């Protein structure tokens, strides 16, 4: 090439192509996205965070939490479980239809304890003919859709995260690295505010072997007054402040924790559906419960 105009022209064409692809096109495809309806219950999703949690998002950004924590759950396909819920009245026909699906279902035991999970298939295309075959006999069956994949098995989410989950985030921080666990659904996993505060102050006190640095600068070491402050952090003895002192979370710590417990991307959406009920494992502690 002899002319610098040619250099500029080729560079211009190459860069404008990817600019159209990864800047303009997503703006056209997603840039005007608004709240969507969840399925099948028609709720608005997502909803904006309440005030303290919105402040906490700023703390999350300013502390650079994203360098260790992603907020993005992956998924590798779905599992469609077909559950027989009602045997209907025409038992012989039902058993005949079930026996055609799998000879093991052909005897009366199948209808004994309902609802009963019959089988698991890979997608709705496979599930639909089975549902029809069962439904035509007067029996009732339903499909429970749940996501699969290591992230889901770890309990990091109930489905993959999608662009809709980040609609109101500024900045949107899906994250690239997992030096710590994914936080997309940390509010579902650990909604206990007091736990979150103790974990921020001394991660090793709550998670044995944790590699997370303690965030002590988010807490204040205060001289004990006549009575201990109601906000003071209850800590195990090896992490507690020395006698006559107490550790009190600052406004930033409270905001950050309000943000963390607000993190949940578990609304079933058209693009990432699931119907499986929530796992019972999560401790049901109200966010405003008193500190233990």
């Amino acid at each position, binding site marked *: *090439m*002899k002319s*610098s105009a040619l*250099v*500029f022209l080729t*560079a211009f064409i*190459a*860069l404008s*192509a*990817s*600019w159209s*692809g*990864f*800047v303009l096109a*997503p*703006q056209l495809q*997603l*840039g005007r*996205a608004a709240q969507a309806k969840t399925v099948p219950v028609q709720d608005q999703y997502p909803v904006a965070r309440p005030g303290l949690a919105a402040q906490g998002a700023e703390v999350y*950004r*300013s*502390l*650079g*939490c*994203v*360098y*260790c924590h*992603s907020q*993005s759950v*992956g998924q590798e396909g779905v599992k469609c479980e077909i559950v027989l819920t009602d045997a209907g009245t025409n038992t012989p026909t039902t058993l005949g239809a079930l026996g055609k699906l799998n000879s093991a279902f052909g005897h009366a035991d199948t209808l004994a304890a309902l609802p009963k999970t019959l089988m698991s298939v890979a997608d709705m295309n496979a599930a639909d003919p089975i549902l029809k075959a069962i439904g035509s006999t007067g029996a009732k069956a339903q499909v429970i859709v749940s996501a699969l994949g290591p*992230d889901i098995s*770890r309990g990091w989410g109930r489905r*993959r*995260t999608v*662009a809709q*989950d*980040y609609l109101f*985030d*500024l*900045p*949107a*921080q*899906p*994250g*690239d*690295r*997992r*030096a*710590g*666990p994914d936080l997309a659904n940390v509010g579902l996993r650990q909604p206990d505010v007091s736990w979150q505060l103790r974990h921020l102050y001394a*991660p090793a006190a709550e*998670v044995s*072997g*944790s*590699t997370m*640095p*303690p*965030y*002590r*600068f988010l807490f204040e070491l205060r001289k004990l007054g006549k009575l201990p402050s109601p906000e003071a952090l209850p800590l195990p003895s090896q992490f507690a402040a020395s006698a006559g002192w107490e550790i009190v979370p600052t406004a930033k710590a409270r905001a950050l924790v309000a943000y963390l417990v607000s993190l949940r991307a578990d609304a079933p959406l058209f693009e990432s559906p699931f119907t499986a009920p929530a796992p019972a494992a999560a401790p049901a502690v109200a966010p405003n419960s008193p500190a233990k």
Partner: protein
Amino acid sequence: MTATSPTSPAIDNSCRLPLFALLGGAAVWLALSSVFGLIASLKFHAPAMLANCAALSYGRAFPAWSHLLVYGFCLPAGVGVGLWLLARLGRVELVKPWLIVMGAKLWHVGVLVGLLGILSGQNTGFEWLEMPRPAAVILFLAFVPITVSAFATNARRSEISLFPSQWFVLAALLWFPWIFSTATLLLQVFPVRGMVQASVAWWFSGNLLNVWLPLAGLACTFYVLPKLTGRPLQSHYLALFAFWTLILFGTWTGIPAHAPLPAWMPTLSGVAGMMMMIPVLAVAASVIKTCCGVKTSCGGGPLCFTRFGAASLVLATMLLAVSACPQASRVTDYTWFGHGQTTLRLYGFFGMTMFGAIYYIVPHLVGPDRVCPRWMRINFWFVMPGTLLLALPLVVGGITQGLKLVDATIPFVDVAKSTLMALRISTLGEVMITLGNLIFLFNIVAAFFGYYWSVGKTVCAQATVLEPARVRP
């Protein structure tokens, strides 16, 4: 060369102060960035270290490292060396060097503002673009006069036909203001909604790391290698092919496979990532053919730096291409693998190539014996093993981390703990790089100050001799 073209010393004269402003600052920021990198790395030895200091927490020290490394060192060093290449290869003096000096000073102010912003928690939250808005505006305003002067220099060149290095420099000068202004406008001035932000941020970082750095770095490789080996570049066509395929494919990289975006975007980006092997193999072929049969031992000099840089680019891009395959990205995504690849690109390729080019250029500017060859060798023998010790454990540790991460039966705490050994080895690399960078800073500052000191002494001596000597003929 036409009859009116300026001599090489005249060209170097016009470049001296602008390059001192750009490269001297770059050396300072580089040394400072590795200190922040060291602080961040030490958190994996003792998480509670400096736990009472918000500014030095991991989430601020780490972006401070990347900010200073990319905007403090890579950009000014790449631009500084590129300007000299434009002037030298075009056989023309730099046009309005004071514009570049002004731009360089403003640029360093912008880097400082960005650093203070990051340390005080004003970071934007987008990786590779952490500096707050005022700093981004200052950096853009600083880049404009430098670009103007560079394009004016190129337009006045007396050697009309362009050498491959000039294509790379010119494209890089076009690339950066475009991607930087797009990202700043759409992320900070008129922020777009939701995941479009992440898409823009990934597009920016992909273009910065996978296109801008190779453009600016390869410009040096293609110039310095033929000069040092005494053989012509093999060949212009191979370089042209590398140039076109690099900007064609590289510009689509950056969006990771796991991105919660419409599936066509990560897919397209993954294909582009694999295609990056094409330009890089062309570069490898060109470097090998240019260097082959050369008996000169590099002995820790510029040739060593440049060759190691080219090898690192090939290795880093192979890692990029591998991690773009869906089967591999399932394991490598979210792990330290990507960070290992990036550090190999930043330190191994770009840093080393720049060291080589700067050690080649600086003697032209300040006189041949102002950089001590021994200290240059020491610099090489600190940074080269340091880079390998930093990047390779991260790559290997990232793979084992990923294999454990996809096995949901392994508790996450065990996954996190299993990476510690690799991270701790990489701290050793970080220490060596820090020492090497301090030596580089010393070499550069000593060379330029040595020159200006001797100039000052001469002027002083002339000013104090008796009257008749001061009368000009």
